[in-house]
């Protein structure tokens, strides 16, 4: 008999209590939206990704295996969905013949305003966006609110040591990108 509140909420939802899904969303949705936003750089796309994740949860709630925690499950779904969307966006851009430098979708107005207000953050964001998918995700998970290396490693399905070494690699790459900007 599990006492994990997320699992209990999922069970209640699969028995027909919609409010249980609301409670589950209250616990995780903000973090999931933030991660999707960080990966996609667009609030609408982030909403789409998280909405699709909830659809998947609704369809599969009754069959949740409990092989991982609910939180890990939700993050995996969102990350996979974001990776799919990024891949689709790259294909579209490649077909449209856009140059390498134009690959990233412009940030929405609010985000841009905030970024302009904080030049340092904008530089960091720009440098992160030039990293590989794997490096970006490791960085996002590492500096995401409420996330630990252990949970991050579980989400990616790798040992904690591997997670840490990948984080190190990502930070080295980030330092190079930022260094290149600051000291050209």
């Amino acid at each position, binding site marked *: 008999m599990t006492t994990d509140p997320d699992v209990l909420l999922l069970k209640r939802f699969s028995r027909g209590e919609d409010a249980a899904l609301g409670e589950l969303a209250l616990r995780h949705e903000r973090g999931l939206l933030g991660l999707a936003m960080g990966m996609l750089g667009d609030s609408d796309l982030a909403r789409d990704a998280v909405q699709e994740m909830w659809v998947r949860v*609704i369809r599969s709630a009754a069959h949740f295996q409990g092989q991982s925690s609910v939180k890990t499950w939700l993050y995996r779904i969102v990350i996979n969905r974001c990776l799919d969307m990024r891949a689709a966006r790259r294909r579209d851009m490649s077909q449209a013949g856009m140059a390498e430098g134009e690959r990233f979708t412009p940030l929405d107005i609010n985000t841009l305003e905030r970024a302009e207000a904080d030049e340092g953050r904008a530089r960091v*964001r720009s440098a992160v966006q030039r990293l590989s998918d794997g490096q970006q995700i490791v960085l996002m998970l590492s500096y995401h*609110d409420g996330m630990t290396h252990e949970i991050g490693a579980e989400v990616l399905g790798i040992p904690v040591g591997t997670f840490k070494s990948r984080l190190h690699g990502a*930070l080295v790459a980030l330092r190079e990108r*930022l*260094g290149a900007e600051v000291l050209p």
Partner: protein
Amino acid sequence: MSDERFNEGGEGLEVSGDVAAALGAMSRWEGEVGVWKAAVGAPAASPFRRTRRLPTWVTALAAMLVFAGLIGIMLPLLGKSRASARVARPSSAAAPEVFKRVPASDQSFLAGFSSVPAAVTPQRELEQASSERSSAGMPLLQRSVIRKATIELKTPDVRAAFAKAAQVLSEASGEYVQESSLTGEDKSLQATMTLRVEASRLSAVLNQLRAMGAVVSETSGGEDVTEQVVDIEARLHNEQRVEAELLGLMESRKDAPLKEILELRDSISRVRENIERMSGQQAKLSRLVSLATVLVIIRSDLSEPEPLPQGIADYFGKQVQRAWQGGLGFLADSVAFIISVVVGGLVFWLLGAVVVLGAVLARKRALARRGTETAPRL
């Protein structure tokens, strides 16, 4: 390249506060939440909401009932198709003897005429007969069975039963008493009758006979003469064709030498003789098939008749006894049916079990996949 924002710490490379804050801000959501509400109303999710799975035992029971029903339907059909296949496709080994056609002496004579068709093989003859029947809309080689039955009765009044037995015949249908005798006296009085009744009415006639006394013994059987019927039909067909050919030759070779014409006549007369003999055999077989033979033996039974039930209690007791026996009979029939379905359809049960097992495993795997998510591939 050095950067004061990145330091080598105990845990490896560490970032300064502003970079860490920037990284944290990238994955921070400050907008509104509540996306889940839209997902609940999304069409893609609606078919999966509120889907309650039936208990496994209910599903299994329903599947078993459906399967048992299918087997119950399929087994008799398979039996029928096997029987019809045996009749419609007689083995070539069973038939060939009947396809001898023109005598050897006539064969050499006919060899001189180029218009005589090549010898027809027995197999071809059968196939041709089948296709002719098929094209004529006739059923494919109906089974021909000579039916025989023997029934032995005991009755206090042998003479009355003897007279009544003759009345079960329908003369309009060509039924008749082939033989009858009444011998002995009193307790040794015995009647014997051989009835020829229409094959389709055999069971009705037996039912009427059973009502005339206590049945001591009863046997029935049938002799399948389908092959003989087919053989004779095929031979007759061939002979008729040969006769037509010979008559055609006779007509076209009126100016042939006398010797050849005489030989031709001899051949025609032999073929005609064969045709007559086979027609007779065919008619005889047809009579035997159309009329079943029933041997009726009626013996005297002068023991005390069973007393009629007296009073409502006696009647009630008899009815209860009859109902009980009927119930037991029904139970026995049901058990026999279940055993025949279980044993007779063993192959189907095994196949069904394999299919169901495979489906269950596939479903479990699919559900397991749906309830988990693979780790992101980076």
